[in-house]
């Protein structure tokens, strides 16, 4: 995963290769997509997400999650790193159901954080293999608990930050927040890559 990309990960156009002094000295990640592709993404106006969902994001998620292109976890590493490097709360990525994870071969939330070199822990586990995207709004809101605490997990009385790829109705994040709060967390915030 640490190799230097010479072609844009999204459109395969050659990337300007020279490593600049600015990138070296400010310890930034090398860019993995070209300017034209990155211009297609829209920044979010909210404080709890980086991007706004649009066609470019739809394509991105399709390639990353459905076509299982793990390399695309690197696309947003600079932005994610900058946003989360000073985060004081303990970061917990939303987990996948073990069966689902074996099917997809990777956890998309964990890979995003790994690519951005952001440390995280895992206290939760998913109870169902159902997907949220297969349900409509009412079904999502009325659904049974999606998560439980991992066996042996200890929730401290401190602040946690839940991380997910996309927030649509917020049901997933709400469920996870509830579990953690009930287990004794002081406060639970959430942050997503994309706001739906």
């Amino acid at each position, binding site marked *: *995963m640490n190799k230097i*990309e010479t072609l844009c990960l999204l459109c395969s156009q050659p990337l300007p290769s020279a490593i600049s002094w600015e990138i070296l000295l400010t310890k930034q990640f090398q860019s993995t997509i070209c300017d034209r592709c990155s211009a297609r993404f829209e920044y979010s106006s909210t404080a709890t997400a980086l991007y706004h969902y649009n066609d470019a994001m739809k394509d991105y998620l399709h*390639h990353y999650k459905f076509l*299982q*292109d*793990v*390399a695309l976890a690197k696309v947003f590493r600079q932005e994610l790193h900058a946003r989360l490097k000073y985060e004081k709360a303990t970061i917990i990525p939303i987990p996948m159901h073990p069966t689902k994870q*074996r099917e997809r071969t*990777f956890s998309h939330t964990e890979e995003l954080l790994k690519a951005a070199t952001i440390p995280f822990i895992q206290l939760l586990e998913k109870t169902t293999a159902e997907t949220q995207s297969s349900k409509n709004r009412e079904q999502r809101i009325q659904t049974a608990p999606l998560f439980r605490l991992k066996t042996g997990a200890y929730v401290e009385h401190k602040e946690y930050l839940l991380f997910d790829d996309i927030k649509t109705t917020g049901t997933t994040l709400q469920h996870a927040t509830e579990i953690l709060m009930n287990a004794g967390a002081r406060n639970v915030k959430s942050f997503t890559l994309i706001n739906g």
Partner: protein
Amino acid sequence: MKYKGWLLPPKLRDFHEGRIWLKEYTPFSKKDIEKSINHKYFNVIEGIQKEPHLKCNRCHNDDPQQFTTFDCSKCQQPCVYCRHCLKMGRVSSCTQLMIWTGPRAIRTRKHSLKWAGQFTVHQQQAANEMLESVKAQRSHLLNAVCGAGKTELLFPTVHYALEQGLRVCIATPRTDVVLELYPRFQTVFPQTIIHALYGGSPKQEGYAQLVLATTHQLYRFERAFDVMIVDEADAFPYTFDETLQSAVQKAKSENAPILLVTATPSHKLLTQYQNESYSFIPKRYHNRPLPVPRFHSLWNYEKSLKRGKIPRKLKRWTEERLARKEPFLLFFPKVELMKIATPLFQLLDGSIMAVHAEDPDRKEKVLKLRHEEVPGLLTTTILERGITIKNVQVVVVGAESTIFTSSALIQIAGRVGRNADFSDGDVVFFHHGITIEMDDARTKILYYNK
């Protein structure tokens, strides 16, 4: 023989014969696949070959840049996958590919050829030469000018091969060409099961002895075809992407001949074939000369379009076509420029539309032009070849751009005057300076007309 309680579903055999397929993505049940593997009907190989160097066993990509390693949750260890053919379903170290080695599908030898057309002398000669080559299992290059009737020329050869019980593939780098060829072959070979394969093609039933496919789809075949025809053998990205060329080699059986068909062969192809199996058709099927492109200067067209103005000469040309109700194509070097120009042209006529490679409606838009529902289209080079529209008139805006090589320009000019009733038409190269490629294209067209 003892009854084993399981019979090979013919559908499974018909689908998998000749294909190299991801085990997880087979459309058949797990049980049938396992049974077939137990019967040694499949050769199962690993997706990514590690020794002597990384190589994808499906698309034969071996560029280390195109592989990614990650911690796999399925195989619980570092896993490598190929990004080159990712869109066809991911091939990684822990996936397996299956190649059919079981009984062969039943091939019929009854194939009727329903075509009443007449060949010209040139065409007949080329068709004969090509047929001879196939009979001798020899590769062949057919060089024929645009509109020489290359597709029709293939009919006798394809018919002969099908009747011999051979499996035939017609591959081309362009999806548009597959879409254009498919209905034509269906009417000509009404008894034959034909499949058209391209990115996003629907599921098709039965065992196809004739396959029309984009060269990309050939990644999914291995030693499948006894005759391999490559149409438009010089088009992007075939000449540019070496794995596509190796895909053609891989998809055919060892001794199968390759027939290359093109209007603009590269120098390399010519030297390779010219002395042995080579046919050349300098004339169109209606024997009328090829339209010769006119050069017109269009200084600073890009600036002018960006300022929201269509350059005067271009505007006059378009208005003339609109007034005479002649369909037209305007070729642009870049999508961005085309998008800027589209609303300007729509001021002249609201129904003018634009197509580019990623346009989901590109099929429909071309059909609309053919059915005279729209007066004209703005396009990038995607429509440079393979399409036939009656009485179409063509303009290249910015013919000096590097994307317009001489072969691209010859192809574009070749869209005009293909119909016997409208054998003449206008081809204008509007330019900001004349390039060698433009001169070369014109010289070649003039040479063919001699």
